[in-house]
């Protein structure tokens, strides 16, 4: 199942929680996820836990114009991990409980302070590494950052702008080489 599929499919049979949202109309990401509503299902986390965890992820690595959907994919990956690992599930649940039910709604400065206070904890470091490992891998993230991803099928960048920068001088041929073809 692709990440985009995950955003639209709802599996009611084994769902313990869900995160939903709407993509901002006109957002480049709206072009990637058909329909403007998205949903991510959990197999272990509750919706409330998911909401807190998404807020943790976003507070750790805030990209304001990067939609919640991209962060929801981080939490979905986390949900899959803890489904297989009871110790990890406890770590996450205890961390969520410690932050309290008002974490997600609190102003950013308070969320930052709360996270700073637990920066040495296993919960914090797990969320940090998990977010770093997943947030920047989705098509949503690629579109946001302008990263073009896989290149082979498009013939590389030889004629698609690998050397199209014009705000600096061209490099003399003696220190570089000819562009083939």
């Amino acid at each position, binding site marked *: 199942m692709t990440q985009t599929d995950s955003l639209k499919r709802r599996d009611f049979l084994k769902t313990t929680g869900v995160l939903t949202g709407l993509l901002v109309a006109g957002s480049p990401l709206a072009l990637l996820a058909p329909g403007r509503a998205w949903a991510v299902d959990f197999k272990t986390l509750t919706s409330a836990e998911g909401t807190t965890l998404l807020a943790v992820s976003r507070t750790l690595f805030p990209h304001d114009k990067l939609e919640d959907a991209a962060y929801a994919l981080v939490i979905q990956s986390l949900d899959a991990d803890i489904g297989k690992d009871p110790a990890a599930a406890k770590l996450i649940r205890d961390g969520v409980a410690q932050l309290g039910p008002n974490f997600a709604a609190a102003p950013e400065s308070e969320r930052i302070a709360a996270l700073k206070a637990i920066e040495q904890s296993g919960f914090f470091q797990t969320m940090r590494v998990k977010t770093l490992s997943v947030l920047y891998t989705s098509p949503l993230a690629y579109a946001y950052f302008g990263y073009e991803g*896989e290149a082979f099928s498009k013939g590389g960048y030889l004629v698609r702008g690998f*050397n199209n920068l014009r705000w*600096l001088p061209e*490099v003399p041929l003696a*220190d570089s*080489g000819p562009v083939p073809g």
Partner: protein
Amino acid sequence: MAKIDLNDEHAIVIIGSGAGGGTLAHELTRRGIKVVLLEAGARQSAQTFSQNPGEAFGQLTWLEPRTSSGDWGAVRDFPTLPVWIAKSVGGTTTHWTGATPRLQRTELASRTTYGSIPGTSIIDWPIAYDELLNYYKLAERRMCVTRRNGIPGLPASNNFKVMYAGAKKIGYKRVHTAYMAINTLPRDGRGMCIQQGFCAQGCKTEAKWSTLYTEIPRAEATGNLDLRTQARAMRIEHGADRRVTAVIYRASDGKEQRQKAHAVCVAGNAIETPRLLLLSDSAQFPHGLANSSDQVGRNYVHHITGFIWGTFKDPVYFWRGTTLAGLIEDELPHNPKRGFAGGYHFELIALDLPSLPLAGLPYGWGREYTSFLDDYRNMAGLFINGEDLARADNRITLNDKVKDSFGLPVAHVHVDEHENDKAMRKHAQLQGTKLYESIGAKRVVLSGTPPATHNMGTARMSRDPRDGVANAWGQTHDIPNLFISDGSAFSSSGSANPTLTIVALALRQAGFIARGLKAGTI
């Protein structure tokens, strides 16, 4: 492909199919010598390489656990992955970026040049530079290295334009698109570079040299090679006469096998080579095979490394194009006035979006971190690659408390930094920052030390048998039919990416082994 019998005592067994093992396998088989090549990894190809960075990492990387200790940055920030080597047919030549600079004359004579430096175990190589130079020339022709032998350099990418402008602005003179084993045009049966930016995930046009699609197929074509993939060497056996006799390995079907050998060449990269020797201890070699000097695993050197990222007002799109085709050589020469021994390269670098936060940025979170990353389109990158001085206690040992999936103790990597390392890194970081700021960088971010991809020195060549593990031919001091055939043999790290030197040494060692087999001295 040959099928060599397990009991064939004439077989030469090579462990590892990378730059050293793959090249050596071809050189021996084309001389009519039967070779069993054991490779722990699977066989990929240009078709199976993935340009999804996470998937490629899983496909090509040695993933068995390692433990680590010491104050080295890579240990602190990547405790379970302090080193990054490949496990695949072709070894790390599938993953490498194709950079092929030569070691400098002074780097082969580091002890003589730098003098005795307290807290280090530096020695000179037991090979004369002019002799190595002959083999560099052979290797460069073989690998079709750019800017050598009339082959033009790679064209300048956007990222290189930024590096070049800044370098020239701060007075650097030796700046170019690097000596690269990457085809600008189709050559030697390999495709041409189409500037994809996924060099480190395996080259899908085979423009980048790798033993996977050069040395190994040519070795197979001789009819003398028996390549066994997903075959992990567990132990090397020897006889009462202290000659090695066989290699025990776990075959792809999970069964343990014993392959008899007339000689064994270990080329598992600088972590697994010493590990295998340590795992092969016996009554006659209680501290590990060929380890009467106690130097196996010691003197582990990598390079002094780090990323320097600069963001600008305008886009760079630095992921477009060859990952590393750019070099500054001005800081290479040994110049003690800078406050440290040895020198360093600046190399062009880019990281894909998923890998940058994981491996390329320093620890951080919050808006200071993300505001930098938001400028990904406008980012340029440099990599520091400098000489790491050998220390006796920077070493690979066995961790008896942690076992791998085969029940063997994993490799433990211990590194404590020397003052020389810190001084060199600081100088390089200042210079790199100046470079980007001189052309208007909005912001410059320095990384810590990423997982080491250049690993050397752990079974080093030495003139004096007490200082190392092998002689000037990579033949172990203790055992005449046991050879070190990878970067473990380096007597110093120098400042050059190691692959070209590994290939040069393999070409040279092949001649020695072939002559020895013919004369009956090996």
